């Protein structure tokens, strides 16, 4: 069985390979072999637990990018019913890297936004690895405005390396598309629940990635810049990305410590990709309970609290 192995998982992968070989031998029905398999299984499980309970920030970044990690579309398919996708920016193109949909979660009608990474090479080519073009963010903004008009809460899934870099994206106003989302999302008179499920890369993530609640999956990251780009700019050595990941304070726990995230949803042992159903269910519960809490707020109070929440972010001195 071929596995996608992240660097820090190599010891684990070696044990697993050994376990696989033993299992192939099991047909011989040696009693010792069965016991050996049992012991090794426990060992693998314990090692996985040990590894994942103390992942470094850089290891978390790798986990957040795991190709089998559940994506926005997996959450939507599992948690939501009556999904009607909205497409297009009404001016240039429909960007498949961004999902905008009307959907129902536990009886609540909402607008769902999300970055849509693919799982296969073909999907990723089509969806640009979840990197939005300006027209994708403008589609998301259509969703924000419709939610505002109809009074539907917004649930947003954050999972992108960043906004799409490129000539076309720049020429069609990537910066403008992002800032207009920020201005709109800060002002909508409906609850906004954002969930970091994987990568949270810079402005492309933030454009749909803040609100009245920020929920982070345990191994998701959210950062002002990808560790690789940070290393390339600050120290001109991309192989020091791990060091940058540690410096940038980008893990779920860092975000809670900084007062930016409200809640961490624990992942199954070995990461969300090892038990997507469990991870998705846990996220679903967290989202619904956030929606429940926020639905009691008056719109005026909600918008005011969201503004105060944003306004309070930052550390500085010399107040005068």
């Amino acid at each position: 069985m071929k596995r996608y192995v992240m660097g820090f998982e190599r010891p684990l992968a070696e044990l697993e390979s050994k376990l696989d070989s033993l299992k192939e031998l099991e047909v011989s029905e040696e009693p010792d072999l069965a016991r050996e398999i049992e012991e090794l299984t426990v060992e693998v499980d314990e090692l996985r637990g040990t590894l994942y309970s103390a992942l470094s920030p850089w290891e978390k970044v790798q986990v957040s990018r795991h190709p089998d990690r559940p994506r926005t579309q997996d959450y939507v398919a599992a948690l939501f019913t009556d999904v009607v996708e909205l497409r297009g920016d009404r001016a240039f193109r429909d960007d498949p890297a961004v999902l905008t949909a009307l959907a129902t979660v536990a009886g609540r009608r909402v607008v769902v936004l999300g970055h849509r990474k693919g799982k296969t090479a073909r999907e990723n080519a089509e969806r640009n690895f979840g990197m939005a073009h300006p027209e994708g963010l403008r589609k998301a903004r259509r969703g924000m405005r419709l939610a505002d008009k109809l009074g539907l809460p917004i649930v947003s899934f954050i999972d992108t390396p960043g906004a799409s870099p490129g000539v076309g994206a720049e020429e069609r106003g990537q910066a403008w598309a992002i800032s207009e989302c920020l201005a709109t999302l800060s002002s909508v008179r409906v609850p906004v629940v954002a969930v970091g499920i994987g990568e949270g890369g810079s402005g492309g993530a933030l454009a749909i990635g803040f609100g009245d609640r920020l929920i982070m999956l345990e191994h998701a990251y959210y950062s002002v810049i990808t560790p690789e780009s940070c290393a390339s700019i600050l120290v001109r050595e991309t192989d020091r990305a791990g060091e940058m990941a540690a410096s940038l304070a980008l893990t779920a726990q860092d975000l809670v410590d900084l007062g930016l995230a409200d809640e961490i949803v624990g992942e199954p042992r070995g990461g969300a990709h090892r038990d997507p159903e469990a991870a998705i269910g846990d996220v679903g519960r967290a989202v619904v309970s956030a929606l429940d809490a926020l639905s009691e707020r008056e719109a005026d109070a909600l918008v005011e609290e969201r503004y105060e929440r944003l306004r309070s972010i930052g550390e500085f001195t010399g107040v005068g």
Partner: protein
Amino acid sequence: MPVRDWFKARDDRRRYAPVNAAQGRSEAARGAWHKCDGCGRIMYGGERADNLCVCPQCEHHMAMSAGERIASLVDPGTFQEIDEGLTSRDPLQFTAGTPYAEKLAGARERTGLNEAILVGKATIGGAPAIVGAMDFRFIGASMGSAVGEKVARAFELATAERLPVVLAIASGGARMQEGMLSLMQMAKTSAAVARHDAAGLGYVAVLTHPTTGGVTASFATLADVTLAEPGARVGFTGPRIIEQTTSEKLPKDFQSAESMLAHGMIDEVVSRDAIAARVASLLRYLVPRDGGGSVA
């Protein structure tokens, strides 16, 4: 809630009863035969009606009358027509080509309609809405004073009763025989949609073949959610005029619903048999903050 319930919930989605497409049609119509524009296959009226005027061989979506369209959209027996008597006059005494008065009379006789749009109150999947459908047989479903008036009144009634609007649209454009009175219907209908929108109410447009000209450039493109039928042509300027006035080569699928979807103008291309259910799903969301329904 246990995890498995999340997955189970997906199968509990409400299903809507199949629409009775033949509603309101005569037995005579069921006996007549039609040739598919797409593949040439011959169908008898009954087969055609049962199949929502979609060719069973090539899936070409043939034109539907406004009555057939309404029947295909709404819950059986719920449609109550409004403003049924409204019809355009001949304010300019327009006689170029076939005189307008003759055209109007012929269209009325041929279609049994008074104008190119049918509007009423109905429920779709149980949800009340103002529903309308245009009829291309009526002078190319062009918009003159009466069509504009019926559209504006539909949105005003919906605003007053806090209801969503669902329109199935087809049109060759503004009705040139009414000159500037027709052009101004674009502003008039857009103004009515804008008020309905500002009142926090929802609007679904279903664009069918062809949706062009002044109707496309007014109320047809102001919906919250825009569906289109497969292969429908959707655009402002017609391909012939573009070829005549520019030297551009038109792309193969120019102005097709599918191309307009890729270009970001349409939310979804939905085949005809799925439209009623899709609209019903949408109406669950397109209710105003206060829950909607009549304020009376």
